C-alpha cells in the first residue's frame, strides 16, 4: 500500500485493519491471474454477477471488467496525468460510445480499443479465452460484452436471468424458471469444456460451492454484526472488503479473508469501539460508490456522521447446499433474487430501521439506469415512511468528470445541518 500512495488519490480512511489490507488481496489476485495466463491456462472476462464458483471449478481465472473499471478510477499513470478511467473513457468516446453510457462500459471498452492490454493498472486484465456475461440487473452488460467479444474476436456466452417480478409476496421460483436457468448453466459448462478441454467435475464444483456457501454465511454474519451501535464497520470498509466475496467466491482465500474480518468486527464490538470516537448519526449509502472519490465516506465524520450501511454488494441468503445436484442449487439461488422496486424499496426501509439510519446519501448515478431509476422513489419512501432525509450525489461510477465537488459539498453540508438540527432538537436520530 505504501509505495502506491503517490498514485492513489482521495482514498478513504478505513476503520478496520482487514479493510486496509484488502488492497493486497486485490493485487495478489491480479498477479495470480497473470501468472495463470502465462502458464498457458485459460482466462475468462466475466460480468460480476455470474456465479463465480463455476469458474474456479472449471480451472478458469476470472477478470471482471466492472471491477477493473473501478480500479482505473483510483489510479493514474503518472502523478500528472488524468485518472486511467478518464483516459480509457475518452478513447471509447472518440470511437463513438456515448458519454451517457455506463462508465464501466466506457472504461473497459476504451481499454480494449487502446490495443495494449498490459498498459493499465496492475498490468491490466490478461487476454481472455472467452467472455461470459449475464442479463441480470441491467441491459448494458449484454451489449457491452457482445461488443467486447466482437472487438477481441473471442467467444461469448450469455446467461439469461429473467427479471422476476414479485407482487406483494416473495415467490419461490417456478419449475420452468429454474429449468430454464439450469439448462443455460449446463450449456455454459459445455461451452467452457469446448474451449478449454476441461471436463465438468461435480465434486470439484461441490468443493467450490462449499467454500462459497461458508463464505456467504460469514458475510451474512458480518452484515448482522454491523447493526451494532456504535457502528463497528462502515461503508468505506464495506466497499473495500467486497472484492473477495464478489469476485473470489468459491475459494478458500475468500473464506479466510472474511473470517479475519468477522473476528476483527467482533473484537471491536466487544471493546465497544466504533468507526469514530463519538458517533452522532448513521447514514445509508445507496448505490455503487463514487470510485474516484472514496474519501466521501469520511466526509461527515468531523460532525459525528458515519456511513453505517450500504446495500450495493451485500450477500443474499443462499438456499441450502444440494451436493447431489449443484447446478439445480445454483439455478435456485439465482432465480430467487428479485430486483423490482416492489420488493427492493420495502426491503431497504426495513434495513434502515435495523441499522438505525438517520439519513440517506443516494448515489444518483446518471449513467447507471438500474441504480438511478429507483432513486427518486427511494428518496420519497425514506422521507414518507421513515422521516429520513436524503441527498442525491449526481455523478458517474468511475468518470470523475461528471462530479462537481463544490456543488456536492454544499448539498452534503446542508444535509448534515438538517440532520444535526434534528439531533439538537432532541428528536431521535436512530429510528
Amino acid at each position, binding site marked *: 500500500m505504501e509505495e502506491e500512495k503517490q498514485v492513489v488519490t482521495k482514498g478513504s480512511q478505513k476503520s478496520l485493519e482487514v479493510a486496509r489490507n484488502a488492497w493486497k488481496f486485490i493485487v495478489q489476485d491480479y498477479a495470480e491471474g497473470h501468472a495463470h495466463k502465462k502458464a498457458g491456462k485459460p482466462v475468462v472476462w466475466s460480468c460480476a454477477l455470474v456465479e463465480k464458483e463455476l469458474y474456479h471449478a472449471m480451472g478458469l481465472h476470472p477478470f471482471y471488467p466492472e471491477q477493473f473499471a473501478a480500479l482505473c478510477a483510483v489510479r493514474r499513470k503518472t502523478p500528472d496525468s488524468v485518472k486511467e478511467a478518464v483516459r480509457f473513457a*475518452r478513447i471509447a*468516446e472518440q470511437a463513438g460510445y456515448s458519454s451517457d453510457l455506463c462508465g464501466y462500459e466506457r472504461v473497459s471498452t476504451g481499454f480494449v480499443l487502446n490495443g495494449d492490454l498490459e498498459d493499465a493498472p496492475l498490468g491490466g486484465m490478461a487476454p481472455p479465452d472467452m467472455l461470459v456475461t449475464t442479463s441480470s440487473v441491467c441491459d448494458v452488460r449484454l451489449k457491452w460484452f457482445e461488443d467486447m467479444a466482437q472487438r477481441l474476436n473471442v467467444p461469448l456466452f450469455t446467461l439469461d436471468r429473467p427479471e422476476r417480478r414479485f407482487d406483494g409476496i416473495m415467490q419461490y421460483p417456478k419449475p420452468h424458471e429454474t429449468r430454464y436457468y439450469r439448462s443455460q448453466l449446463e450449456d455454459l459448462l459445455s461451452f467452457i469444456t469446448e474451449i478449454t478441454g476441461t471436463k465438468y467435475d461435480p465434486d470439484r464444483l461441490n468443493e467450490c460451492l462449499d467454500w462459497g456457501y461458508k463464505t456467504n454465511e460469514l458475510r451474512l454474519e458480518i452484515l448482522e454484526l454491523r447493526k451494532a451501535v456504535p457502528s463497528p464497520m462502515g461503508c468505506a470498509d464495506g466497499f473495500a472488503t467486497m472484492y473477495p466475496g464478489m469476485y473470489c467466491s468459491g475459494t478458500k482465500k475468500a473464506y479466510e479473508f472474511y473470517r479475519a474480518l468477522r473476528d476483527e468486527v467482533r473484537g471491536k464490538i466487544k471493546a465497544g469501539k466504533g468507526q469514530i470516537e463519538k458517533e452522532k448519526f448513521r447514514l445509508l449509502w445507496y448505490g455503487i460508490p463514487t470510485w474516484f472519490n472514496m474519501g466521501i465516506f469520511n466526509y461527515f465524520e468531523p460532525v459525528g456522521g458515519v456511513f453505517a450501511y450500504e446495500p450495493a454488494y451485500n450477500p443474499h441468503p443462499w438456499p441450502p447446499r444440494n451436493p447431489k445436484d449443484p447446478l439445480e442449487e445454483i439455478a435456485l439461488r439465482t432465480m430467487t433474487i428479485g430486483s423490482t422496486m416492489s420488493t427492493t424499496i420495502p426491503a431497504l426501509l426495513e434495513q434502515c430501521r435495523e441499522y438505525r439510519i438517520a439519513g440517506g446519501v443516494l448515489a444518483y448515478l446518471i449513467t447507471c439506469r438500474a441504480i438511478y431509476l429507483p432513486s427518486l422513489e427511494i428518496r420519497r419512501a425514506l422521507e414518507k415512511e421513515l422521516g429520513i432525509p436524503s441527498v442525491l450525489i449526481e455523478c458517474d461510477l468511475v468518470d470523475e468528470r461528471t462530479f*462537481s465537488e463544490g456543488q456536492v459539498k454544499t448539498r452534503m453540508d446542508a444535509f448534515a445541518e438538517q440532520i444535526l438540527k434534528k439531533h439538537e432538537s432532541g428528536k431521535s436520530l436512530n429510528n
Partner: protein
Amino acid sequence: MLYAGIDVGAQSVKAALFDGQKMVGSVCTVTEEAADEAARAVYADLLQGVGIQRQDVEKVWATGWGAADVSFADGKSSEQLCAARGARWLLPAARTVVDIGAEGCRVMKLTPEGTLEDFANNSKCASGTGSFIELGAVYLKVPIEEMGPLSLAAEGAAEVSSTCAVFAESVIISKIHEGETRARIAAGIHRAAATRIVELIGRMGFIEDIILIGGAAMNPGLAKALEEMTGVPLRVPENPRVVVALGAAIQASLKRSRRGKSAS
C-alpha cells in the same frame, strides 16, 4: 466569371467572391438583422468593396443556418460541404477540416480526392465551442481577444474540469482562490475546450493535413492547445471566418456542370 458565396450564421453573415482561380474579396459582419436583409446588406458591401455590379456575378450560393432565407441566391448547400470545398481550395492537402464557431464545432473528413466523406458535430452541450472560451474570458475579466495570447504566456495549465460553460465560472473562481495565475487558467480553459474538439477530430480519425477554420481559429491559444493534444500541426488559413462563404462561392462555380440538380 465571378461567383459569390454567402454564409448566414446565427450571429454574423459572411460573404466571399470567387473568380474561378482565387478569392477576390470577402466581408464578415456581425448583425442582428433578419436573415434576408442581413445577407443583402453584406452582399452589397462585398460588391462595393470589390467594385463590381450585381450583373457581373454569375451565381450566388447560400449556406449556413439562414441559407433558406436568402431570397436572391441561386442555390444553397450545407455548411459541411462548403467548409470542405473552401478548405480544400485553400489547402489542397487537407483531409480533416475543423470548423469552430461561436456555438458549434464540426469536423469534416475528406477523401484523398477532396470530397466530403463524413462529419461530426458537437451535440447538446457547448463545451468545445468558441462560447466556452468567451464565457471564460468574462469570468476572468479578460477581453476575449486577449484570451489566446494570455494562455500562450502560461507555463502549463490549470485543470478546468467543468463541462458546462456556465458552471466553469465556479471552477475558474476557485482556481483564482487557489492562487492560480490568470494565464494558467486561460490555458486551462483552452485545454478544456480543446479536449472536446479533439474528441470530435478523433471520431473522424485524425487524418492529416488538418485545417482549422471558423471564428475561433483566430485564437492562437486554442490552436496551440489543439496542436499539443493531437500532436499534429494544424494549418490555419489567413481569414478563417470566411472559408465557408468561399466554399459556397466555389460550390456555385461547380454547380454549372452538374446534372440539372439546381437549388430547390
